[in-house]
């Protein structure tokens, strides 16, 4: 009888340990997910700023935003082919392409002839809502400046495919 009591006790202890571990894991996962920068659904403060012409970019059905710099090796045309293709395809679908650079005058070299809005200055609200900390970063944003897709780092062919897939959810 004493054995059974002992076993019952250990069952109970282990059950509590299991529950505690599962709860801790749930907490870690939730916290990590909340820390993911620029998740889909996040709203940005738009319009983001003004172009060299002193005006905000014209309104478009969607916006492809790229944070890049000429000082960033991975923003160079030789790494930007998938980005160029993505930019071309999405601008053909009615999106505009907005280039933001860290210091306004350090725009990356353009790899193709797709028209781009290069921002001469950004608003503090846009800067706060994006908090970019590295280059390149690419965002696909809907008409209301809500993130549909985001990517940190060089855009590869598979990322470009994902962005095009995500763009299908955009309202025409």
């Amino acid at each position: 009888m004493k054995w059974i009591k002992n076993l019952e006790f250990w069952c109970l202890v282990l059950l509590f340990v299991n529950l505690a571990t599962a709860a801790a894991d749930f907490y870690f996962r939730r916290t990590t997910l909340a820390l993911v920068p620029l998740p889909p659904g996040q709203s940005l403060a738009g319009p983001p700023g003004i172009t060299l012409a002193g005006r905000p970019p014209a309104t478009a059905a969607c916006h492809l935003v790229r944070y890049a710099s000429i000082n960033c090796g991975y923003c160079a045309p030789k790494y930007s082919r998938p980005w160029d293709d993505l930019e071309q395809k999405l601008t053909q679908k009615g999106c505009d392409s907005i280039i933001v650079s860290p210091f306004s005058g350090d725009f990356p070299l353009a790899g193709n002839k797709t028209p781009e809005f290069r921002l001469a200055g950004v608003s503090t609200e846009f800067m706060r809502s994006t908090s970019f900390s590295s280059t390149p970063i690419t965002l696909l944003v809907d008409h209301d400046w809500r993130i549909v897709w985001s990517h940190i780092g060089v855009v590869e062919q598979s990322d470009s495919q994902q962005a095009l897939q995500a763009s299908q959810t955009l309202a025409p």
Partner: protein
Amino acid sequence: MRIYLLVAILGLMIVEALLLPRSLRDFRAMQKMRRETAPTQGLPLSVGPFAGYDANGRPLALVTDDTRWIVPLVIHSAQLSSDVEYLGRLRKALPSPAITFVGVCDNSRCGDGQKSEVPLLVYGSYAPLQDIVRLDGQGQVLLLNQFWGVRKSLHRTSSMENLAAEIQQVTGQ
């Protein structure tokens, strides 16, 4: 009865053996994300080159030939008039043309029709704005040289006189 309990204990131990490594892995992932998303600490070496524009998108001449020091101050939209007044009083307290004061709006509507003796910047370069706003969040104001190099961070006190005295002490103006 005893065999069932032994099986239950064994089962629970297996579940725990599966859960624990998973929890440790997720804990490490959380720590890594926390480190990566933490704002950059400390003072930047420089916040330039810096381009600034007013509410109408006109470029602001932030630096003149006389400029030796630049003090960018964030104008908070929640206390717009008091911040603009604070900046105006600071300008009056330190009228030397060697010091350039710039109001950095945290809202794109703040410079619209706002009367100020100091230029109000509504749009600016991304990375410098990030540094100015981050330090403002810590109650600090950057004191920059004419090349946008960071000389010192000062405390933004509620008393304008204290900040003016601090600027005067460092710049000698």
